């Protein structure tokens, strides 16, 4: 009788101890996240219903910011550009990454060297990538147009022609996304048992057949993961566009992304209310697309 009482008391001091340590351990990050991330989200939402004055003062304005936002053709352009960018860049870069990952998975010599080269853009700062490509794309002295001249092709003004600028941006986005995708896909590929391929080739299956019937289905969970994170980051594209396309660029309407315009509204012209509205609409779009992706995964992702 006495023993169990002592035991329960010990138990409860242990539990109290656990509560103390648990909260102590999460306290710093919890406070930081609350102050810098969680509370600010609600604040942003609130700001989107306020009109901002020149000196940081703001007053309730209802849905006016949202109205202003949808009346501004620039904002429509930026959403269009971002959607096109994401829906072209993501599938394109994933397809290329799958091909490279499969090639690298073939027990070939020099795997590390190839992997290093494909990974280089990932460790290069996007601001630097923007600068490098701006030079490559230069209409008069850029190396790309010089090389096109060898084939007697008159290269376009990549970054100032409204018909080309988004394509140029998509190329840079793809080029810099391949490394990360490839590494994640390669580790997914290495998880596929070799015996499956051996069995298939004994049955006389061609490598192409094995690719579509074994590799793709078994890799689909990894592809799904890569697709989800790629879409989220594609919707936030900013850094290299900011470096390559200045606000005075004649093709700006066809180039600016949502974040580009968000930055302009919030931190260049000080319209924080409209910027907050833009941020919120983009947040909703990302959320909805991510949910759709999770819904659609049942149709094509194979979990064992």
């Amino acid at each position, binding site marked *: 009788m006495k023993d169990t009482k002592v035991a329960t008391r010990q138990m409860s001091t242990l539990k109290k101890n656990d509560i103390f340590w648990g*909260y102590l351990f999460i306290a710093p990050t919890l406070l930081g996240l609350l102050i810098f991330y969680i509370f600010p989200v609600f604040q942003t939402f609130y700001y989107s219903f306020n009109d901002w004055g020149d000196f940081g003062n703001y007053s309730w304005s209802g849905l006016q910011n949202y109205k202003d936002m949808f009346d501004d053709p620039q904002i429509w352009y930026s959403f269009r550009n971002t959607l096109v960018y994401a829906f072209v860049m993501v599938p394109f870069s994933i397809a290329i990454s799958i091909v490279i990952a499969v090639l690298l998975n073939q027990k070939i010599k020099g795997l590390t060297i190839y992997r290093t080269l494909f990974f280089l853009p990932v460790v290069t*700062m996007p*601001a630097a990538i923007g600068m490098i490509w701006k*030079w490559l794309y230069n209409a008069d002295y850029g190396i790309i147009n010089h090389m096109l001249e060898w084939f007697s092709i008159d290269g376009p003004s990549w970054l100032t022609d409204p018909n080309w600028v988004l394509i140029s941006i998509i190329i840079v986005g793809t080029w810099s996304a391949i490394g990360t995708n490839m590494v994640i896909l390669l580790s997914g590929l290495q998880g596929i048992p070799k015996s499956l391929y051996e069995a298939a080739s004994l049955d006389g299956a061609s490598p192409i057949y094995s690719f579509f019937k074994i590799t793709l289905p078994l890799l689909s969970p990894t592809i799904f993961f890569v697709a989800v994170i790629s879409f989220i980051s594609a919707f936030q594209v900013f850094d290299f566009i900011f470096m390559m396309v200045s606000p005075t660029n004649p093709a700006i309407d066809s180039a600016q992304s949502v974040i580009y315009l968000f930055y302009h509204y919030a931190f260049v012209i000080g319209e924080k209310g409209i910027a907050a509205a833009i941020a919120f609409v983009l947040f909703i779009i990302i959320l909805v697309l991510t949910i759709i992706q999770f819904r659609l995964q049942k149709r094509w992702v194979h979990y064992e």
Partner: protein
Amino acid sequence: MENVSKSRKLVIHLLLLCGAILMIGPFLWMILTSLKTVGEAAQIPPKIFPEVFQWSNYKEIFDSFPFAGFYWNTFITTIIKTIGQLFLCSLAAYAFARIKFPGRNFFFILYLSVLMIPPQAFLIPQYQIIANLDLLNTLTALVLPGLFSAFGTFLLRQFFMTMPDELEEAAKIDGCNHFQIYWRIMLPLAKPGLIALAIFTILWSWNDFLWPLIVNSSPDKMPLSAGLASLQGQYSTNYPVLMAGTFLASWPLIIIFMLFQKAFVEGIALSGRKG
């Protein structure tokens, strides 16, 4: 069979080589351009190698920009953010994985929800906090919000979850408290996770662009990324100098990557598997 696979390997190498050239080409062109005169860079048809290596382009950058300061600002904020995140995230991750306390699930879901929020949804208030604390144009501004990471906590929690209970039980019997178990037993075992998180933090911190652009407009407190943008403002068409600056901004991380490339690649792959 041998022959078939040999020719197949040749095709694979050819394909990969083409891809690799597309990847490395822009970097080589950056380096070559950075050593040319403006005239050479604009020459038609282009010259691949400069007549004389123009090291003066690099000198020019250090003369007219506080580039050494850019390095220091980037370096010190990256170090502080990385060490801070490793410590704070691993503490919280340990609690979420190994300690039972009321509200644990609620708080963990709260952390997870932060993962879903895109940055622009908290940038404006973050900027205001920094401005209200009078921290604009300081290194503290660069570091502060980045010390706290929901992603890091999530990543490390996955590691602490997989550790055997026996170790913890034995330590408890020996009278260790949770901090001792965390510090002496769990942290050393979570090394792969810590390395992965360190790599992500270094990458993000070194390359971060939008946040420094917003909070630090004075050149002496800028990191390399924002410094590069201001470089472009001054040398808008002097591509040799711009390429020299671009090279200077990006080489340290490329070298670090070359030295620790196995850890980098494994860290990124790991997040794919744990995520």
